């Protein structure tokens, strides 16, 4: 048995010692002595503070001291020490498309979890996995795992396995891409009272590499063409098809395959109203792309706007007044993006960096962009590991912070019951003692003795 609040138990020990001291230093009736000249002693209270070299009433002393000790132990949040390793491991394994090999990641998790540990997988959501079913999977993985969700699940798993352990080891199996860290991650990491070990996994192949974007356009001098060429030269392109006219059946069929993006960008040019801003939001890491130019504001096709509230529909860019500018709709394993941004024929806006950034967002994969280029460096992930000299997390601290941890253990109730029984026994023993004679329990034998 160990205590989650040992200082309370120490207070109980101190109280028990005080009880023993009170048995030695207490007010008692002095021992009787025959004295023929007793009549010359003035009348006074027949009690005197006396110090005994050894305590009497050992039964009462033992009952009282034991009761106080048990009460102290009960409030010190005792827990049983279960048999098992003193250090248990919580493995956070990322399961997303950012991980190069999910099977390798799970294998590493199996290696590191050890006896009595726990494995927590985290993608868009996090959960604890049964140790007997740590299998790899391919479908249904998020683009990037949420490290914050993983830390929360790891904390819950740690609270579950903390009783019986001395320390808890936290292991993170992840490629550590930038998108896995959000604003809550530092605070959640700081709440873990110990260091974290990071096992770096290889990130998935850069999905930004692929075949160049194919531009299907009726224009001879499309201003979008050089911008797409420039984008492909800089970063490569995905399986992207840009249709500047009507969407054909072949285009839709092409889009059905996984990872393909059909960018429906009408080559219709209305009169630009004025300089107007458009803001594009990437799905993964990275800042929003903002472009201010005399764009023409094109209406999105009928039906597409109606589906804007559908769960599967995603707004990739909005005008500065909040109206959707680019909308993505899944189609088979790929997706169709309807672009309502009219590009002016004159000017070099398409060759400027803000537009290139906008184009980069619009041509990213349907699930967002992942790749080795977005993996956090060791230096930027050092804060996740913490100080190497810092100890492992204390299982007592984890268990003490767990909600309802005290209510789980039955030991406090048991100890309090025993203490109550001892106090009742003490009361009975005190009543059973002879009424007369020297007493050391503070009970007055007589108030005042007079001749």
């Amino acid at each position, binding site marked *: 048995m160990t205590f989650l609040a040992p200082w309370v138990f120490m207070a109980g020990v101190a109280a028990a010692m005080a009880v023993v001291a009170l048995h030695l230093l207490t007010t008692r009736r002095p021992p*009787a*002595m025959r*004295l*023929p000249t007793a009549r010359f*002693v*003035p009348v006074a209270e*027949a009690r*005197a503070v006396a110090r005994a070299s050894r305590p009497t009433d050992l039964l009462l002393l033992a009952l009282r001291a034991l009761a106080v000790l048990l009460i102290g132990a009960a409030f010190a949040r005792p827990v049983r020490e279960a048999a098992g390793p003193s250090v248990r491991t919580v493995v956070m394994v990322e399961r997303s498309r950012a991980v190069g090999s999910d099977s390798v990641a799970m294998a590493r998790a199996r290696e590191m979890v050890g006896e009595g540990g726990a494995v927590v997988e985290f993608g868009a959501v996090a959960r604890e996995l049964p140790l007997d079913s740590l299998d790899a999977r391919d479908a249904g993985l998020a683009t990037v795992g949420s490290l914050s969700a993983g830390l929360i699940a790891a904390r819950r798993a740690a609270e579950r396995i903390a009783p019986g352990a001395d320390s808890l080891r936290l292991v993170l199996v992840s490629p550590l891409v930038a998108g896995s860290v959000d604003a809550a991650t530092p605070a959640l990491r700081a709440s873990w009272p110990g260091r974290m070990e990071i096992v770096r996994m290889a990130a998935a192949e850069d999905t930004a590499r692929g075949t160049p974007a194919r531009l299907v356009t009726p224009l001879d001098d499309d201003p979008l063409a050089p911008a797409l060429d420039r984008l492909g030269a800089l970063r490569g392109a995905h399986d992207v098809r840009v249709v500047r006219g009507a969407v054909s059946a072949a285009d839709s069929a092409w889009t059905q395959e996984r990872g393909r993006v059909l960018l429906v960008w009408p080559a219709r040019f209305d009169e630009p109203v004025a300089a107007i801003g458009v803001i594009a939001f990437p799905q993964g890491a990275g800042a929003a792309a903002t472009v201010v130019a005399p764009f023409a504001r094109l209406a999105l096709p009928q039906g597409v706007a109606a589906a804007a509230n559908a769960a599967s529909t995603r707004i990739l860019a909005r005008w500065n007044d909040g109206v959707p500018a680019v909308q993505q709709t899944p189609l088979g394993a790929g997706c169709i993006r309807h672009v309502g941004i009219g590009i002016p024929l004159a000017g070099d806006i398409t060759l400027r960096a803000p537009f290139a950034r906008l184009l980069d967002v619009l041509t990213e994969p349907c699930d967002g962009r992942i790749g080795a280029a977005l993996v956090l460096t060791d230096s930027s992930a050092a804060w996740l590991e913490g100080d190497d000299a810092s100890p492992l997390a204390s299982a007592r601290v984890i268990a003490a912070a767990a909600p309802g941890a005290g209510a789980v253990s039955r030991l406090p109730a048991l100890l309090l019951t025993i203490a109550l029984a001892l106090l009742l026994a003490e009361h009975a023993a005190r009543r059973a003692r002879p009424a007369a004679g020297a007493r050391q329990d503070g009970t007055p034998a007589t108030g005042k*003795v007079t*001749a």
Partner: protein
Amino acid sequence: MAVGPYGALLDAVRGVRWPARRPVPGGAPGAHQARSRGIAPEFAEYRPYRQGDDPRRLDWKLLARSDKAFIRLAPDHAILGTTFIVDASASMDFRGKWLAAKRLVVALSAVAHAGADPVGLTVAAADGVRRLEPRTRRGVVAETARTLDEVRPAGSAPLAPLVANGAAAARCVVVTDCLGDFDALRAALARHCAQGGESHLLHVVARDEVDPPADAVMATDPEDAACQRPLMALTRDAYLQRFAEFRAEVARQVRADGVSYHEVMDDDATEIVVRRLVAPGLTASSVGARA
């Protein structure tokens, strides 16, 4: 003479004499100067012859020279009966008080007996009064010692009636701790003195009564179980003061009545106490006080 444990004490007081404090009434020849004149060889004074005097006591030579008849007188000596009245109450059974009382009585009995005085004993015990009439025969000291050894102090018995019943013109020695019927005893001793007797009061005090232990105790009177007082640091000084005042008052009152008063500590050497007690003219100070 079987005197048991008192042999060394009797050896120590051998040769000690205990003269009377004043001339004793005439009587059987003894060691004490008598108030009457006798016919001893040594001359004391003349007295005119009165009718009825023994003609053989006429100083015929003086009659021939002066033609006057004078009776030749000489100092007379008589015995002085000594009675010891011993307090055997429960209060005497404390520390060495009873032993000191026994040793005092035995030693003084031996001294008095050595002076050819009749020695008697009266013990006021809880189971009754034990009395040995004054006698001069051999073995009276041993009998006194044996009687005292047979007594175990207990209860409480008045001493004053025993004094009143004693011979009027005798020596009365009361050995007590003055914690009983002291007022009545004092009156009886004063009356005994007024009748021409010689009274001694030996006040036996235990050292632990004068200087009790410093530890807190519940003092219980052995003669009165209801009297229980806590003797501790808070009450110790008051107790010491009260007891000292009591002893001083006892000594003052008894001496004012003409009674010889002596305070004897239980750990005093008995032979020294006896020698100081019998010293002529020593009547006021505490005999038991150590030099």
